[in-house]
C-alpha cells in the first residue's frame, strides 16, 4: 500500500513557525515556512537540519505558503537564501504582494531595534520573492509532471488559501489558517467534496465554540467607548494587515454613528499602503464589500488618522492601533510600556499570542512584566482579550471535514491538550483516523490505490446493455469480465475476441455437448417452455433467455428434439468457460429425467 508521510518541523502540537513536511509519491513538499514569535534564538525558525545540513533544493520539490502571517511565511527568506533552496514557492497573488512587506517590517524590528545578528537582509527578501509563483483560486497548477496543486479560499486573511495537493493517486488538503464564518471584510472558507486521503487542519480553536460575532463586536465597542469616556487610552496591538482592517471598519462606523470625537490612530505609514492592497484585491474580500466598492470603498477611513510617536504622551483619550500584534517588539510594545502603569488605560488583544511574548504573559494575568534590559513594567491598565482572530472554531473544523470528506485527518497549529479533545471527537463522529504529531515526529498514513486502466468502450457497452436488459434488482451485482492486454507499455481491457485479435493469436473454443432423455409427451416446444420455466426458477441470478425453441444461459444452450411421443432428446451444450454452469444444468436435467 502506498504511504503518505507527514513531519511537522513546526506547528506540531504548537502554534507558531508552521512548517510541515509532506512526502507523497516520492515527492517532498514543504507546507508553510513560518517563524516563531516567542523566541529570539534559533528556535525562532524551523529546524531545517532535520532534512539535511546543506542546501534543501535536492530534497524539497516545492514550497507552498498558505497566507502572509509571519508564523506561516516568516522563515521563507531564511530557508531559501540562507539555508539554500532554489525550487519553486507557491502562494496566492495577495500573499505574494503583502508577505514581503511584513517580512521587511519584521526584519527591521529584529535587526534595527533588537540588534540581532545573522538575520536575512532586504535583498534576501527580494531574491526570495523572485522564486515565488503566484496562483489564483481553483487554478490547477502542475508543479512538475507529477505534483498538481489547487488553491481554495480560506477566509482567514486577505489572500489566505487552503491547498489541495495531488501526486499520483494520493491527495492531501492543507488548510493553513481558515475561517468558516464570513466576517466584516472576508468571506468564509470553501472547499468542494474533494475526498483527500489526508486533511491537515489547523486547530487553534479546537475546543472553542465561539458565541455570536455580533455580541463580541458589541462587547468590544462598549469597552472601547467606556474607556474613552473616562479619558483613558486604548491600545490595540494588531498586525498591519488582516484583523486591523476589520476593526477599523468596525470603529469607523461606530464613531460615525455615535458621533465620537476621540481620535483613532493607526500606527505606521503602512496604513494607506495596506488599505491599497485591500482595494486592489477586492475580489478576495466578501460579497458585500465587492458589491459596493465602486460607490464607496470600505477602506477609505474618515476617522482614522496616521499615528506619530509624539502622540504617545499626548493627554486625553485616544485609540491606537499599533503593530506588532503580540507585543513582542516594535511600536506596540513601546506604547504598552508607557501606558501600562495607568489604570485608566486599556489594552485589547484581538488575536492569539504565542507563548513567550509579552502579549501572552499579560493575557495570563501577569501584573509585572520584566524585560531583557532588566526594565520592569507594572501592568495596571485593563487587559482584555477579544477573540477576533479569524480561525475556525471546533464547529467550523467539523464542518470542513464534512465538506471535503477526507480519509484521514491531521491536526496541527494548536495546543496539544486541546487537540486531543478534538481528535477524539473527530474519530467518534466521522469514524476516521486522526493524527496530531509533535514537531519532528513522523506520521505514516497508508492510502488505498485505485489503478486506472483503459477499457474498450465496446466491452463497457456490452455490459451495460446486458445489465439493463435484466429486470431491475437492487441486489444484483454488475460484473465486468474481460481480458487485459499488455502490449508495448499499453494496457487495455477488452473482450476476449478483441484481445486475441490484438495479441495476434487464435482463441481455441472448447465446447461440450451431452444429451438427456426426457419423458414428456406433447410437442417439443411445450417441453422446451417447461424447461425454460424450470431453469429460470433454479437460476434466479442468471438471465435465462428463450428464443426459437432454444434456451440459453450465458454460453449454455439447451435444445429439445423429438416427436410428440413421450421421448424427447434434450441437448445441452456449453463452452469450457461455463463448465460449472453447464455441468450444473446438465446434472439438473439429468436428475429430472430420472
Amino acid at each position, binding site marked *: *500500500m502506498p504511504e503518505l508521510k507527514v513531519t511537522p518541523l513546526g506547528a506540531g502540537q504548537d502554534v507558531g513557525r508552521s512548517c510541515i513536511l509532506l512526502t507523497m509519491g516520492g515527492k517532498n513538499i514543504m507546507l508553510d515556512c513560518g517563524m516563531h514569535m516567542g523566541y529570539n534564538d534559533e528556535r525562532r525558525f524551523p529546524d531545517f537540519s532535520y532534512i539535511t545540513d546543506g542546501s534543501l533544493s535536492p530534497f524539497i520539490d516545492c514550497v507552498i505558503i498558505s497566507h502572509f502571517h509571519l508564523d506561516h511565511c516568516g522563515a521563507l527568506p531564511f530557508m531559501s537564501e540562507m539555508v539554500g533552496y532554489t525550487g519553486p514557492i507557491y502562494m496566492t*497573488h495577495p500573499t505574494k*504582494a503583502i508577505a514581503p512587506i511584513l517580512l521587511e517590517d519584521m526584519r527591521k524590528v529584529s535587526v534595527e531595534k533588537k540588534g540581532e545578528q545573522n538575520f536575512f537582509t532586504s535583498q534576501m527578501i527580494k531574491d526570495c520573492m523572485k522564486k515565488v509563483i503566484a496562483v*489564483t*483560486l*481553483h*487554478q*490547477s497548477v502542475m508543479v512538475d509532471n507529477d505534483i498538481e496543486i489547487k488553491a481554495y479560499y480560506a477566509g482567514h486573511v486577505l489572500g489566505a488559501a487552503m491547498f489541495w495537493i495531488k501526486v499520483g493517486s494520493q491527495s492531501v488538503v492543507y488548510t493553513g489558517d481558515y475561517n468558516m464564518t464570513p466576517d466584516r471584510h472576508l468571506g468564509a472558507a470553501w472547499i468542494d467534496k474533494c475526498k483527500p486521503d489526508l486533511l491537515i487542519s489547523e486547530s487553534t480553536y479546537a475546543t472553542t465554540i465561539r458565541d455570536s460575532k455580533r455580541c463580541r463586536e458589541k462587547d468590544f465597542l462598549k469597552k472601547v467607548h467606556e474607556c474613552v469616556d473616562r479619558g483613558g487610552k486604548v491600545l490595540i496591538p494588531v498586525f498591519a494587515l488582516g484583523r486591523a482592517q476589520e476593526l477599523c471598519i468596525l470603529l469607523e462606523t461606530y464613531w460615525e454613528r455615535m458621533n465620537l470625537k476621540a481620535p483613532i490612530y493607526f500606527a505606521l505609514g503602512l496604513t494607506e499602503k495596506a488599505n491599497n*492592497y485591500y*482595494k*486592489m*484585491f477586492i*475580489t478576495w474580500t466578501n460579497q458585500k464589500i465587492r458589491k459596493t466598492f*465602486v460607490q464607496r470603498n470600505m477602506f477609505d477611513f474618515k476617522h482614522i488618522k496616521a499615528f506619530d510617536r509624539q502622540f504617545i504622551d499626548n493627554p486625553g483619550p485616544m485609540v491606537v492601533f499599533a503593530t506588532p500584534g503580540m507585543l513582542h517588539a516594535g511600536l506596540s510594545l513601546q506604547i504598552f510600556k508607557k501606558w501600562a502603569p495607568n489604570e485608566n488605560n486599556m489594552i485589547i488583544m484581538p488575536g492569539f499570542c504565542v507563548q513567550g511574548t509579552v502579549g501572552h504573559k499579560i493575557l495570563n494575568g501577569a501584573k509585572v512584566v520584566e524585560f531583557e534590559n532588566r526594565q520592569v513594567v507594572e501592568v495596571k491598565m485593563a487587559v482584555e482579550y477579544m477573540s477576533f482572530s479569524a480561525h475556525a472554531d471546533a464547529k467550523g473544523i467539523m464542518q470542513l471535514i464534512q465538506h471535503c470528506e477526507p480519509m484521514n485527518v491531521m491536526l496541527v497549529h494548536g495546543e496539544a491538550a486541546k487537540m486531543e479533545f478534538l481528535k477524539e471527537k473527530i474519530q467518534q463522529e466521522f469514524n476516521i483516523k486522526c493524527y496530531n504529531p509533535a514537531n519532528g515526529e513522523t506520521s505514516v498514513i497508508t492510502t*488505498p*490505490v*485505485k*489503478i*486506472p486502466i*483503459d*477499457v*474498450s*468502450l465496446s466491452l*463497457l457497452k456490452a455490459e451495460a446493455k446486458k445489465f439493463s436488459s435484466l429486470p431491475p434488482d437492487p441486489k444484483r*451485482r*454488475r*460484473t*465486468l*469480465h*474481460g*481480458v*487485459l*492486454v*499488455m*502490449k508495448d507499455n499499453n494496457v*487495455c*481491457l477488452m473482450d*476476449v475476441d478483441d*484481445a*486475441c485479435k490484438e*495479441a*495476434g*493469436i*487464435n*482463441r*481455441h*473454443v*472448447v*465446447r*461440450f*455437448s*451431452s*444429451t438427456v432423455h426426457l419423458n414428456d409427451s406433447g410437442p417439443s416446444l411445450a417441453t422446451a417452455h417447461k424447461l425454460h420455466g424450470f431453469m429460470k426458477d433454479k437460476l434466479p*441470478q442468471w438471465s435465462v433467455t428463450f428464443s426459437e425453441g432454444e434456451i440459453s444461459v450465458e454460453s449454455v444452450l439447451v435444445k429439445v428434439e423429438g416427436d410428440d411421443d413421450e421421448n424427447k432428446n434434450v441437448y445441452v451444450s456449453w463452452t*469450457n*468457460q461455463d*463448465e*460449472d*454452469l453447464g455441468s450444473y444444468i446438465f*446434472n439438473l436435467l439429468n436428475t429430472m429425467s430420472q
Partner: protein
Amino acid sequence: MKLYCLSNDPNKPCHVLTFREITMMLDCGLSMQSLLNFLPLSFVQSNRLLSLPNWMPNDTSDPDLEGELKENGDRVFVDSPPEFCPPLDKLVDFSQVDVILISNYLCMMALPFVTEGTGFKGRVYATEPTLQIGKLLLEELVIYIEQCPKASFATQWKNFLRKCPYPLNEAFTPKSWKHIYNMTSVNASLSTIQMVGYNEKIDVFGALQVIPASSGFCLGSANWVISTEHEKIVYLSGSSTLTTHPRPMDHHALKNADVLIMTDLTQTPISNPDSMLGVLCVVVGLTLRGGGNVLIPCYPTGVVYDLFECLSGKMQELGVSNCPMFFVSPVADMSLAYSNILAEWLSSVKQNKVYVPDEPFPHAMLVKSNKLKHFKHIYSEGFSTDFQEPCVVFCGHPSLRFGDVVQFIELWGNNPRNCIVFTEPDYDYIEALAPYQPLQIKVAHCAIDTSLNFTQANKLIRDLKPKTLVVPECYTQPPVSAPNLTELVIGNHPDSTLIPYKWGEVINLPLKRKQAQVFVDPNVAQNIIPIEVKPGISLSTITGTLSVKDNVHNIQNTSGDANMNKPVKYEWGSLNITEFLQKLSQEGITDAKVESLGGNVVVIHLQDEDALIQLEENSTHVVCNADEQLRTKLRHIVMQCLKKF
C-alpha cells in the same frame, strides 16, 4: 459527436456540441447586425430624424405599413425599437442544454434569450471578468434601449421585405428577431453563471472535463479544452497573440486535439491593429490641434482601456494634453473600477504593478488628474460644467443606433473640424452612419481588432496539429471585402482534416470513442496473472464487480459471490492430435478412431464409449452422452493439450 451551428455571425458564435450524452453550448453570442436596419434612438427629440419621409414600396398601399419605414438617401430604415437576431432555437431544445461555456464577455449577449423562459436548467461557466464585465455590457445595452421608449412597434415591414431596397431586403431571418430582454431576465440569467479560474478542471457529470485556458483576447477571455481520458476537443474563440493588457494566450493547453473548433477570427483581415492605432493617434492629434472634437464610438470595456493609455501619452507628446478625455457610459465608473481590481487576469507587466501597490491601468491616474472624466450620461450631474471643447469623447454604442453617441453626432455632425473615429470592428461604418447622412464631420476608420488574423490562425493550426479542424465555411473563402486575397483563408493543413460548417447545419464530427477508463481495486489487481503469449504481449483475464457512479467505473472484488469467484481462463492455439491421442492412451482410452472429414476437421470416435471429439483448428467439440466421469476426464485431457491465458 455532433456540432450544431446556431449563429450566423462567426464573431458572435453560438454552437451546441453533443458528446457522451452531454449537450454543451459553446458561447452564446448575439448577432447585432440587425440593428443597422433601424433608425437611431434618441432620448431628446431629433427633428431631423422625425422629419425623415415615410417610405412605401411602389405598388403597395397597406395602411398598416404606413410610418414603419423611413427613407434617408438611398437607405430605408425601420422606425421601431431595435430587434436582435438570437441564436437559432429550432435545432436544439434549450431546456436540454446541460452546460454553457462562455469564452469572453462579447460572446454572452444572447444568454438571457437562451436561459430565460426556455426551461433551461443547466449551468453556465465563465471566468470572473467575463461575468463582471459581461454584466456591464448587458446592463448598458438594456439601459440604452429602455431610456428611449418608442410608442409603437413596427411589425408589418417584415411581410414586405422583398419589396424593400438593399440592404433591408437581405436582412437575415428578420422574422426570428426579438426585442431586447429586461434587467430582470439579465439578472436571472447571470445568476446561472458559475465563476471559474483559468486552468480550473471542471467536472461535467463525470463524463467530461472542461478547462478554460487563457486566450489573450480580453480580460478573462478563455478557450475551452473539453476532454475525456482519451479524447480532446478544443473550442477556440476570440484569441489574440498580440501583447495588450490581458493575460497572454495559453497555447500549450490546446495542442494535439482530436477536434479543434476555430471561430471568432479577426473582422479586419486586411489591416493591422498596431498601424491602426498609429493612424488613430495621428487623427486625434490633428483634429484636436485644429480645434475640432474627436468622437470615438466604443464599447465600455476592452480595447478602450488601451486607447486611454495610448492616447493620453500621445496627446502629451503632441502638446494637446490640456484637452480632456470624456468616457460616457451608464457603466463607465464600474468598468474603470473593475478593470483595476482584476489584476490576476492581466499581463504580467500590469500584474506586477499591484505588488507595489499601484493600479494596473494608468486610467486610475488619469481620472485622479482629471485628464479622463467619466459620466453615466451626458445629462448626468456635472457633465455640462466639466464639458469643454475641444475634447475626445468615448461613448457607446458602436452601432450608432442608441446611447449618448447619437447626441454627439447631432451636436458635432455638421462641423468638418470634428472627427468621428471608428475603432470597434463589429459594424460597417458606412452603414452605421447612413441614417445621419449628410454629415460634415470627418470620418476616420481605424478598426482595431486584436483577434487572430488568418496568418496567425494558420500558424497556430500548424503548431497545434489538430486531427480534425472545424471552421465556419466563410473562413475557407477569401473575405467578401477582398475576394482576390486568396491567402486570407483557413487553408488545408496536411495533418488535419478540414470540416467547414454554416448556420443551421448539424455536423457529424469524426470522433469515435473507442476507449474509456476504469479504476481497478488493488484486490482485483492482485489476481492479474499476465501470461506472455508472444514476446512483449501478455494477457490476463479480469473479473470483478462493476460499480458505476457519476460516470466513473470501478472494478472491485467479487467477494461473497460463489458463482463469480473462479477466475475464467481462455484456451488458445491449436490442439496437436498426436499428443492428444497419446494422452488419451495414457489415461487408458485406447479405442480412439481418428477420421478426417477434410479440411482441418478431424473427428475422434471413442467406440467403446458414447463419445466423440471433433477437432478443428480453432475449436474442439466434445460430444459425450455417457457419464460425467468420462466427460471430465476428456475435458482434463483437452485442457492439457491447449495453451491458456
